[in-house]
């Protein structure tokens, strides 16, 4: 416990995300402003906008869960667990719905910008938008999941003293890292699928999100949850790479 654990966990959870932001998004606003004249929003603003969308989706999902809990029997543990599962599924579906809504909003804004642009092209490519929005989704989702755990890790305490797993902190950090990367990949694939109307890709993204969230229900049986989630992350990463036009 203490500062070492805090910095280690923060590094594991947000290292890749921070590197991605520093090397790609942070340099972007200036580059875009230099290159493009008619930009209403730059990379940083889009990141914040999508974080706002994610927050709203989380709010709605929490509302649904809260109402369902209030209306149900508090004593029944199985029912509560079931409601939690239901709440998580609703949250996943709402997140994807808001991702779609953000896609629509970006398309409209971009078309507007393109029409007043000098050469009729939009200032930012769809793939860049997909990447930034996926990354922001991932970062805000990861931060909300892990920030309280990080804050608790500074203080005194013993992990798992009541019989829970002692690896809680480090597995949380790895899960957060996987989630951030997954959101980035899903963003790229999702936007490309919406743009090219490949609806089976969309369905596959939503299904893999549901699967990932469902796998975390197997915690603390970490072999069954962490390993498959990382395999899914790798596969999704490859898929996003191919979708974005990369080749080997």
């Amino acid at each position, binding site marked *: 416990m203490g500062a070492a654990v805090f910095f280690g966990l923060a590094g594991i959870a947000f290292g890749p995300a921070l590197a991605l932001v520093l090397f790609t998004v942070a340099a972007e606003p200036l580059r875009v402003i230099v290159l493009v004249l008619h930009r*209403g929003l730059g990379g940083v603003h889009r990141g914040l906008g999508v974080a706002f969308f994610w927050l709203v989706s989380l709010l709605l999902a929490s509302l649904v869960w809260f109402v369902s809990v209030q209306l149900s029997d508090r004593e029944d543990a199985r029912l509560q667990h079931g409601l939690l599962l239901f709440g998580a599924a609703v949250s996943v579906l709402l997140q994807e719905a808001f991702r779609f809504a953000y896609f629509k909003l970006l398309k409209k804004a971009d078309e507007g910008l393109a029409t007043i642009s000098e050469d009729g092209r939009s200032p930012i490519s769809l793939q860049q938008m997909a990447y930034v929005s996926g990354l922001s989704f991932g970062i805000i989702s990861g*931060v909300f*999941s892990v920030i309280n755990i990080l804050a608790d890790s500074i203080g005194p305490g013993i992990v798992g003293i009541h019989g829970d797993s002692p690896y809680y902190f480090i597995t949380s950090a790895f899960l957060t890292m996987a989630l951030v990367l997954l959101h980035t990949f899903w963003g790229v694939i999702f936007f490309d699928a919406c743009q090219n109307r490949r609806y089976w890709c969309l369905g596959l993204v939503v299904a893999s999100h549901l699967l990932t969230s469902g796998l975390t229900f197997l915690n603390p049986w970490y072999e069954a949850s962490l390993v498959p989630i990382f395999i899914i992350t790798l596969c999704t990463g490859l898929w996003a790479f191919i979708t974005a036009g990369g080749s080997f």
Partner: protein
Amino acid sequence: MITFMNNSDSEEEPCNERTSLMSAESPPVPSYQDGLQASEAGGAQAHRKRRTGGSRSPNNIADGDMSNSGVPVRETTSENEEEELTLKYGAKHVIMLFVPVTLCMIVVVATIKSVRFYTEKNGQLIYTPFSEDTPSVGQRLLNSVLNTIIMISVIVVMTVFLVLLYKYRCYKFIHGWLILSSLMLLFLFTYIYLGEVLKTYNVAMDYPTLFLVIWNFGAVGMICIHWKGPLQLQQAYLIMISALMALVFIKYLPEWSAWVILGAISIYDLMAVLCPKGPLRMLVETAQERNEPIFPALIYSSAMMWTVGMAKPDTAARGPTQQMQDAAEDGRDNHRSPLCTDSQRSEMRNPGPTRPITSFEEVEEEERGVKLGLGDFIFYSVLVGKAAATASGDWNTTLACFVAILIGLCLTLLLLAVFKKALPALPISITFGLVFYFSTDNLVRPFMDTLASHQLYI
């Protein structure tokens, strides 16, 4: 509290003006390029009137812009270019304001989370006389509403008083008032803050060192804010005094009163800046008519114009004045910090009218910044700080309020770029912040806590 009773007047003075965002575009000065002027004149006047956050530079800047973009041209394309420039700078301005607002909030949240002094209840200001330690919920609600009414009326009265003083050119009075307020903020509040931080970390500091540190900090602050100084140092000082003021509010405003006051103040801001007879709008319009910057101590400016390679010496003289004026205008809403930019304004006014408006071709580059009133900084930080202090030790609520406020600021700046007039910066951000605070604290927190206890991820 006796100490606050005597000083609160100056404390409250800053509360009079609401912050508003002013657009950066300066109103075009009728001079020089007729074609551009015609198209800009409308916009410029609008800009001038609006006090909102944009950094509005005085005419000179507008002229400079005109000359930069318009010289080769074309009245047909001048409007397009103006729009281009607006949008081009719009995104940059948003970032230029995000950083100071974020810094101020980080300072306030860090202090709240570490120094316990600012979350302890030690009495209330005389502006909120009704206590909230009442047995029933209804009584508590009534008390908080009464507190809000008293506080807002004090603010309205002070703002109107300030506008009247400004209108009747009592610059010395305003100047003295603002200097007194900033003296108190820079010396007394800093001393208390430093004392509490040292107590928290159990660091010993002897009185001579303390005196030296506080004296230097305060003296340099007074000079930077009220006179000349490097832009970044001035911005840093403005951020620090906003944070100090916000901490005072967080400490001395009782719980429910603070939330109701935040809501009421955004409504007041909306009315004061947009209604034709609103005090803040009149202040901005008067400042624009007189071609003076608004109190530099009340507005945060993200940039200043510099004139590089000016051909005429008087334009060079204009340069520093512009800066001050910009700084003053930044203060727009903020009377919250009773800094006196008025005095600066009066000083700046003298060389002003004598400047020729020609020779803009020489201007190499103009930075049009955005101006945000210090009161906006203060109330944003109060919201986030209260969220950090009272949200059950939960970081999600603080983060949600932070994102909400920044999104509100982004939207307000977008509206600023569209409408090109002074706009109130509080309503949208505070509304989003309040909505997110209450919903995150009551709905999202139990959900996320339950998920985290089972180590579930969504």
